[in-house]
């Protein structure tokens, strides 16, 4: 009968981009149970909505997290626009799609680099992030910020981008996609990557659905569910499809994110080709009243913004349910029966963004 020990994992750990604590109940080298503990980055941002007026709150919402910043700002703006019952001009919708997909590419590239670093392939990590820097330079040129895009506002987007600059960006993105294909060959074929990732951390389809997983974690287990099918922004006007894989292990999650990156590049090319002319913002009038849930697809999965206004300039409640929060039960089930050396890899494949989880 093996003896049980408890090994604390985190909050400081080389694989973790943000602090998270797990108590691993171990029998020899195998994890029997994992008990999560969060709260290291709890800043109480939701309570700030009561003291900041609803227009200033957009800046706070953008800064909930650095990796998913663009879509947080977009989700908040979409929620307020629904409460104010206002439309967003077509050009702004397309620009939001372009920036949202660029945000997805940079997040997936960041994650791929971290995954490579987690299993020790440091030069692949450096090359992936070098490519990401090239993308961030374009983001900075078009929006003004590298990490916090500052692109979305209530009623549209804050900046217009000239068509000439957009075409120049697309030309460079095509070169970047070719370079990404070179790195992808290593991620998907190399023996070292596959031996660490294949068959590890399997999440069967039924368990993925029952534990409420979202995003690539869910899609890698074979469930075709993507919040972009709701058709917000201009997602109903570009051709794309939901990407799924069947195996449900860490390698399937790498494959899903690689394919999604290629698809995001393609969506950007389509959006720039179809970009309509016109204004980029509508002025908001009045104060938000009523309640609404805005649902968007973050790089990590489905994010929900619940906004409740009572006709004054302060919101009554602002609640963000981020995808990593919903993936915690899936993580706990994936870790059962894993080896200690694989815990870091499995944790990283749900793409944990703890700043988002704890707001």
């Amino acid at each position, binding site marked *: 009968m093996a003896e049980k020990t408890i090994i604390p994992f985190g909050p400081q750990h080389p694989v973790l981009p943000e602090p998270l604590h797990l108590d691993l109940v171990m029998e020899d080298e195998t994890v029997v149970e994992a008990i999560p503990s969060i709260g290291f980055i709890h800043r109480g941002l939701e309570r700030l909505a009561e003291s900041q007026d609803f*227009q*200033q709150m957009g800046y*706070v919402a953008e800064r909930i997290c650095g990796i998913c910043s663009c879509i947080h700002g977009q989700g908040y703006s979409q929620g307020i626009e629904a409460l104010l019952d206002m439309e967003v001009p077509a050009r702004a919708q397309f620009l939001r799609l372009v920036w949202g997909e660029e945000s997805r590419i940079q997040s997936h590239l960041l994650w791929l680099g971290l995954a490579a670093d987690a299993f020790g392939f440091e030069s692949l990590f450096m*090359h992936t992030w070098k490519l990401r820097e090239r993308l961030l330079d374009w983001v900075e040129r078009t929006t003004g910020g*590298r990490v*916090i895009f*500052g692109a979305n506002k209530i009623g549209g987007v804050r900046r217009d981008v000239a068509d000439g600059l957009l075409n120049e960006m697309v030309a460079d993105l095509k070169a970047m996609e070719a370079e990404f294909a070179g790195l992808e060959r290593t991620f998907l074929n190399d*023996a070292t990557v596959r031996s660490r990732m294949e068959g590890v951390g399997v999440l069967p389809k039924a368990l993925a659905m029952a534990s409420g997983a979202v995003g690539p974690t869910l899609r890698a287990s074979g469930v075709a569910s993507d919040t972009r099918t709701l058709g917000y922004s201009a997602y109903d006007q570009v051709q794309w499809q939901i990407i799924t894989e069947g195996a449900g292990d860490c390698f399937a999650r790498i494959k899903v994110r690689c394919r999604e990156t290629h698809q995001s590049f393609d969506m950007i090319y389509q959006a720039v080709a179809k970009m309509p002319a016109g204004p980029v913002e509508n002025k908001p009038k009045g104060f938000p009243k009523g309640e609404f849930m805005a649902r968007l697809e973050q790089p990590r999965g489905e994010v929900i913004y619940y906004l409740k206004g009572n006709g004054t300039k302060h919101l009554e409640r602002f609640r963000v349910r981020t995808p990593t929060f919903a993936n915690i039960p899936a993580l706990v089930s994936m870790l059962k029966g894993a080896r200690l050396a694989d815990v870091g890899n499995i944790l990283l494949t749900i793409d944990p963004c703890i700043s988002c989880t704890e707001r």
Partner: protein
Amino acid sequence: MAFGTFSLTAFTSLFKKPATTTWPATAYVPVAGARGSLQFTAESCNYCTLCALKCPTGAIRVDRVKKAWTLDRFKCIVCAACVDACVKKALACDPHFSPPSDGHVIEVYRVAEGADGCAPTDLKAP
């Protein structure tokens, strides 16, 4: 399963120039259009205080009576809400980042008695 898929990338990177720059030996060239740091033109300001009201962090304080405009760079998140709000176009984003500072300094722009120009004076914050 393939072996050595990374060797081509690794080999060709020997012949490419480095992705990093040798700062501070070479100067940092900011990307055009970046929101680097806030620049204030005191001559255009009419002290309407709109920038201070819009600032989400409270980095800007304006004294209408004494005609003083102060900025706490440590609090400024360069969101450019004030730039969008300013009617007189007295505020703009300069692509260069503000230099690091080892003391908490609040920049004050004040119209001197009887003079028509403004010069920034640095005051140590309490």
